[in-house]
C-alpha cells in the first residue's frame, strides 16, 4: 500500500496504492455480473441493472447515498483502529451500542442523542481495550464476542423494557420527532455528519502529532515504544475513537432512517465496515469513495432482487471478494500482533 491516491493528495504517507483498490472493486463487480449466468441472465444485463439500480436515477442515487452513510462511519471506525494496529472487528456491536445510547437519550433532543451514540460506541469498544490491557485478551476475539452480547442485549431490550407500548412487535416505539435528523429530500443530515467525520479522521491521522504516533504504533509497536511513544495509550485512544465512529453510525441510522429499534437493527453494517476500510486502504478520505461503492453495490443488489429475482445477499458476496482481493494484494501485515 503505497503511492497513488495519497501522492496526489500530497500527503506524506507512502502506504497507499490506488490500482489495487480499483482492481478489487472491478473484480467484485465482474464476478457478480458473471454469476448472473447461473440464474439465466447475461452478465451484461445484470451489470446494467446493477448500475441503473444504484446510480441510474435520482431516486437510485439517493438510496445509494442513504446506504453509504452508515458504511462510511463504520468504515472510518475500522480504518482508525486498523491504522493503530488494533483489530477491531466489533463494529456491529458498537453500532448497536450507539443506537441504543441514542435511543435512550433521544428524549433530551437530537444533539444529546448524537452525543450519547458516540459515547456508547466508545464505551462498548473500550471494554475490549480494557481487557487487552488487564489480561492481554486479543481484541480480535473480544470485540467479536462483544458483538454477540450487543445483539442479544438489543434483542432483550426490544422484547422487554424498550418494547413498544402496544406490545405487538419486538420493536421499540418511535423516537420523539424533535430527536429525528432533519431531512434533505430522501436523505438526512447524517450525511453531513459522516463527511465531517471522515475529514476529521483524516486530520487526526495525518495532521496531528497524536495521529502520527497512532499510525506509528500500528506499524511497529516495538519501534514506537523505543521512540518514546506510549503505545498502550494509543491503543486505548484508537479503540475509543473507532468505537465512537461505529456508535455514531448506529445513532444516525436510528435518528435519520429507522426512528425505532428492532431486532437485526445492525444488519451487517459493522462487518461491512471492514470491507469499506480495506478497499479504502485504511485512508479516511478513501473511505468516502469506498463507502459510496459499497452503498451502490447494496442498492444495486436490491434492484437485482426486484427485477431479476436474484437474492440481494449477492452484495455480501461482493464485499467478501473485495476483502479477499485487498488482503491478498496488499502488503500490510494482517494478523501481526506485536
Amino acid at each position, binding site marked *: 500500500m503505497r503511492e497513488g491516491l495519497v501522492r496526489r493528495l500530497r500527503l*506524506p504517507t507512502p502506504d497507499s496504492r490506488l490500482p489495487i483498490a480499483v482492481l478489487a472493486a472491478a473484480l467484485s463487480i465482474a464476478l457478480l455480473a458473471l454469476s448472473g449466468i447461473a440464474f439465466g441472465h447475461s452478465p451484461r444485463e445484470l451489470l446494467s441493472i446493477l448500475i441503473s439500480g444504484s446510480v441510474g436515477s435520482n431516486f437510485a442515487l439517493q438510496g445509494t447515498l442513504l446506504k453509504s452513510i452508515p458504511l462510511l462511519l463504520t468504515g472510518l471506525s475500522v480504518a482508525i483502529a486498523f491504522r493503530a494496529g488494533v483489530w477491531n472487528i466489533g463494529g456491529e456491536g458498537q453500532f448497536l451500542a450507539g443506537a441504543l445510547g441514542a435511543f435512550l437519550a433521544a428524549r433530551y433532543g437530537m444533539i444529546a442523542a448524537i452525543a450519547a451514540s458516540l459515547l456508547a460506541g466508545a464505551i462498548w469498544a473500550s471494554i475490549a481495550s480494557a481487557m487487552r490491557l488487564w489480561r492481554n485478551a486479543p481484541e480480535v476475539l473480544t470485540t467479536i464476542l462483544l458483538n454477540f452480547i450487543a445483539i442479544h442485549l438489543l434483542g432483550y431490550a426490544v422484547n422487554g423494557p424498550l418494547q413498544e407500548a402496544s406490545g405487538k412487535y419486538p420493536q421499540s416505539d418511535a423516537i420523539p420527532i424533535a430527536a429525528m435528523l432533519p431531512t434533505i429530500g430522501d436523505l438526512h443530515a447524517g450525511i453531513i455528519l459522516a463527511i465531517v467525520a471522515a475529514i476529521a479522521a483524516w486530520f487526526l491521522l495525518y495532521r496531528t502529532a497524536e495521529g502520527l504516533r497512532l499510525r506509528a504504533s500500528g*506499524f511497529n509497536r516495538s519501534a514506537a515504544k523505543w521512540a518514546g511513544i506510549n503505545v498502550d495509550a494509543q491503543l486505548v485512544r484508537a479503540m475509543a475513537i473507532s468505537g465512537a465512529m461505529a456508535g455514531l453510525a448506529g445513532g444516525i441510522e436510528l435518528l435519520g432512517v429507522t426512528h425505532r429499534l428492532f431486532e437485526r437493527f445492525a444488519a451487517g453494517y459493522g462487518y461491512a465496515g471492514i470491507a469499506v476500510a480495506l478497499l479504502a486502504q485504511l485512508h479516511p478520505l478513501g473511505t468516502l469513495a469506498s463507502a459510496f461503492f459499497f452503498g451502490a453495490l447494496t442498492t444495486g443488489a436490491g434492484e437485482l432482487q426486484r427485477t431479476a429475482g436474484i437474492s440481494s445477499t449477492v452484495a455480501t458476496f461482493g464485499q467478501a471478494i473485495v476483502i479477499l482481493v485487498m488482503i491478498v494484494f496488499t502488503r500490510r501485515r494482517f494478523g501481526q500482533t506485536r
Partner: protein
Amino acid sequence: MRLSHITKSFGANKAVDDVTLEFKPGEIVGLVGENGAGKTTLMSIAAGELAPDEGTIEDRTEVGIVHQHFLLVNEFTIAENLALSMWGRDPAEVIRDSGIDLRGFHRRVADLSVGEKSKLELIKAIAGHPRFLILDEPTSVLAPAEARELFDVMRRLAADGVTVVFISHKIPEVLEVATRIVVMRRGRIIVDGGAMSAEQLAEAMVERFHAETRGRGEKRSSSAPPRLRVKSLEVHRGEIVSIIGVAGNGQSELAANLRDTLRGHVAHIPEDRARDGLIAEMTIAENIALAEPHWNPRAAARRAAELIERFDIRAQSPLQRAGSLSGGNQQKVILARELERRPEIIVAAEPTRGLDIEATRFIHDELRAAAARGAAILLITSDLDEAFTLGDAIHVIYRGTLSPRLTPGEAASEAPRLMAGIGSRESGVGA
C-alpha cells in the same frame, strides 16, 4: 566424524566460516563462544539438520541432539512424548536404559519442572544409542545439582565411546566437564585445545582489544534472559560510561528497563535496529517527528531535509520510506531523531553494530559531541574497542549484575575475568 571446510551463511551473515573439526570417540568437547558465534549452526550441520553451503562431512555417525529449546508436546505425557520419537518401545524400559532418573511417566509434560523436561529431552536423544551426542546449552535451565547429574551422564556416555559435544557459555562448567575445548567467534574456530585456564578461555571468547571487522550479524540464539540485578548506576553529566560483557548477560534487559523507567530528556538508541529502530513503513520525516509535540508535514519535511544534510544521510528525499535506507543510514536517522532533542541522558545500545568504518566514526563523533554538550551517556556495547575508546569509565555486566565502576586502565586488566564471572568483585552497586 570429521567436518571439513564447513561454511554456512544466513543472508549476508556468515554464521559458520570455513570450519574444520575432527571428533574422536569418547571425548567431551566443550564448544564455547558468545551468542551468535555460530556454535548452534555448526552443530545443526553436524547433526544433518542444516545443509552447509560449502564443505563436507566425513564418517558421519548416528547423531543425537538436545536442542536449547524443548521440543516436547506439553499436553502429552512423558510416555506419549517418548512414543512420538520411538513408537512401540516400552517407555519404562527406555528410561531405565538411559540411566537417567525420571519418574512417573504418566505425568503430563506441562506439569514437569524444567529440569525434568531437559532430562526427558536427553532420554529421547540417547534412546537411539547415538555415537555422537550434541547438547545445546543444556544447563541454562538446570539447578546446580541437576547439572551435576547431567555431567555424570555425559561422562558415562563418553566412557562408552560416545563423542559428546557440550555447547555452553558458562566457563566454569566447561572447564569442569570438557576434555577438549573449542572456542568459536564470528563463525570461526579461535582455539581448539585441552587444558585451559579460566582467564585464557574468557579472553578467547570475547574479542579483547582487536575488533577485526565490525560487521556482525544479529544474535541467532539466546538462552533464558538473566534477571537484572542492577540497583543503581551512576553516569555524570558530560561523561560516557561503557557497559561491556559477553552478549546475553542482561544488556538488553538493562536497556529496556532504562527505556521504561527513565523520565525527562532521555534519548534511546535501541540495540535491535531492524525491529526497534525506525518505523520502516513511514517516511524519514515522519520517523524524525515521532516524539515531537507537534506535527506539521511541511515543517517536518523541511526539518528532516536539514538533518539529512547535517547527518550526511544518503537519502533521496525526506519523504523516502525509512525502511528503504541502508542499515548505516537508518542508524543515522535514529541518531538524528534522538540527539536533536538535546537529551540530558543518552542510552546507546550497540550503536555501531554492523556499520562500516565511516558510519561508525561518525556515530562515535556524535556521541562525543553530545557528551561535550553535557549529556550523560551510557554506552552498552559488545565491541570492546568502542567501549574503551569512548568510555570514561567502564562497568562489566555478568548475569545481570554490574561490576564496580572501573577506570579504563583497571578494566583493561580485570575485564576478561569479570566477563567470565570469575573472582567477580561484586560491588555494592550490584547484587
